[in-house]
């Protein structure tokens, strides 16, 4: 690709001028024209709303006056905002770490199953990820229900005191994270399983002969070989988890007392229930810079290793 570009630059420099015919026949022009429909779609569906939300965030509540950074200044002074920042980070980071750990362990178990049974298990383990979360979360809502909770029923029979799953702020945070892990782990599992399959079996054999036990094989062979996939999957999941809406919305609706709100649900609450669309837009805009910083650091490592491998 690089030398195509280089050649394209050199031709007009030599001839001094560029005819329309030549311009139309250039590879880069054709490539651009072919990508144009996609660029148009992205522009309509991503860039336009992004700029529109920036525009919205700079208006007053009735959307009649430009207030500049007024909405942001208002947000910074509110404790709820900082609580949402904290909860969003806690929610996303904890959930991603646990999803990665659970996915990694389950992927190893599935990988070591005999190949006949493996497909069946892989299919079954993907179910939580395949069911629409809006539906599966409803099932979880039932499991956590104050009166009909299946968990509490078991606890009662075991003589353990009952838990107010969604009523207590700490347990409510635990619950939303737990459900998110349940929904998201299969994605990690399938990505890690694919990465594991690409680790040549002979490396394990060589390591076995070199004296490695099962843990050392995972630590010194699998982990380094899977590092890029682990990081990219974690980044991807971090973005999706950070922007999560459905699980929190259905399970706790941000409660009790806004303690489980994440950016998306709080923005929705402010904008739609609170009838303050500019303020909601300001909240949702906060996700972008935080995720950009995370993406920068993670992808920088991936690119550096891509060169050395």
């Amino acid at each position, binding site marked *: 690709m690089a030398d195509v570009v280089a050649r394209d630059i050199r031709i007009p420099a030599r001839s001094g001028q560029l005819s329309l015919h030549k311009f139309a026949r250039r590879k880069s022009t054709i490539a651009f024209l072919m990508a144009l429909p996609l660029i148009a779609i992205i522009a309509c569906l991503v860039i336009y709303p992004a700029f529109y939300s920036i525009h919205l965030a700079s208006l007053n509540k009735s959307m009649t006056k430009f207030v500049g950074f007024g909405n942001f200044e208002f947000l910074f002074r509110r404790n709820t905002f900082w609580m949402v920042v904290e909860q969003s980070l806690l929610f996303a980071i904890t959930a991603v770490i646990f999803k990665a750990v659970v996915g990694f362990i389950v992927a190893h178990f599935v990988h070591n199953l005999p190949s006949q049974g493996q497909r069946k298990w892989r299919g079954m383990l993907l179910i939580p990820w395949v069911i629409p979360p809006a539906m599966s979360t409803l099932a979880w809502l039932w499991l956590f229900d104050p009166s009909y909770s299946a968990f509490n029923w078991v606890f009662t029979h075991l003589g353990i005191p009952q838990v107010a799953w969604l009523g207590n702020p700490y347990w409510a945070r635990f619950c939303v994270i737990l459900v998110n892990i349940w929904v998201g782990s299969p994605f990690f599992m399938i990505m890690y399983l694919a990465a594991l399959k690409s680790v*040549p079996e*002979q*490396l394990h*054999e*060589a*390591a*076995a*002969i*070199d*004296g*490695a*036990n099962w843990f*050392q094989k995972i630590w*010194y*062979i699998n982990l*380094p*070989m899977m*590092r890029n996939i682990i990081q990219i999957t974690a980044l991807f999941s971090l973005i999706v988890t950070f922007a999560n809406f459905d699980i929190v919305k259905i399970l706790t609706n941000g409660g009790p007392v806004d303690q489980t709100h994440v950016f998306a649900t709080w923005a929705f609450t402010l904008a739609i229930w609170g009838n303050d669309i500019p303020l909601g837009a300001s909240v949702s805009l906060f996700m972008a810079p935080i995720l950009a910083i995370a993406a920068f650091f993670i992808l920088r490592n991936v690119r550096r290793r891509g060169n*050395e*491998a």
Partner: protein
Amino acid sequence: MAQVALRNIVKMFDRTPAVQGIDLDISDREFIVLVGPSGCGKSTTLRMIAGLEEATSGEIYIGDQLVNDVPPKDRDIAMVFQNYALYPHMTVFENMSFGLRLKKFPKPEIRERVQAAARILDITNLLDRRPKQLSGGQRQRVAMGRAIVRNPKVFLFDEPLSNLDAKLRVQMRTEIKKIHQTVTTTTVYVTHDQVEAMTLADRVVIMNGGRIDQIGSPHEVYHKPRTQFVAGFIGSPTMNFLPCRLVENGAGLTVRLSDWLALPVPPSREARYRPRVGQEMIFGLRPEHIREGRGDMPPGSAAFDARLDVVEPMGMETMVYFIVDGVEVCGRVDPAAAGNVGESMRLVADLNQMHLIDPRTEVVI
């Protein structure tokens, strides 16, 4: 340093037998080559010695220890794989020192050992590189270095030269031989290339269909093959096999190959072959024992004329092919003496080197 012993080893994959009861004694410091066509069970045997496959039955001893239930890491062996199996995320130094680091050797000793091995293999300047940055031959050296630094009881090589180009393969073959002369460790080497087997081995083990056909020195398996398979497998181009009938001819014996070709059995073989008179047999003679006819005729050889079907000049010698009763026969002659295709050429068969094979048992008599 240790000897290796296999006692009636059987390996089944599901219900398919891969190795069917082999016995093998390898002495201390010996270089043994397991050779045979693909699927003959040679790699499986090696992997069982390594502990990467479990023997279905039988006993494997390394030193005096029964190792059937000992995991690979505790067998004190080192293995070089066909595709090297270097850890791609580690440098050459880290690759070579991996086993020592796992065994918690002190750092100065690790450095010393890796340096020493790198000097033997001439890769001291590559220690900071990663496998991706190395050529095939260099990777091969690193893989051997990883084995040498461990100073194990036994070296196992699984077709280590198959991924190299022809020229490099010859060069590395010589290097392996040299290294074995320096680091005299018991070595088991698997290959499908009979030239590698002949050049490297103290003793060659020829396997066929999960069994051992013959164990012997390179000289032995070449000159005294036990079966038709061994006779055909060792040597290139392969031995000529022709159906024949052993007939009495006055006081002596004659091998009748066709209406126009009958060769006299040398007197030294007569006693051995006499019980087979009148039987259908297979006559075996290597191409190098069919030469051009010169003035002198050494005892035990016989001259005949043949119409050449194909002539293949190889440089230092020329292969000539002729047909005997529908079977193509190859001879190896001096390029200057080779005739042209379609012409008749005088050839001499050295019958002191002939073999007679029983077609039912495929055993050489």
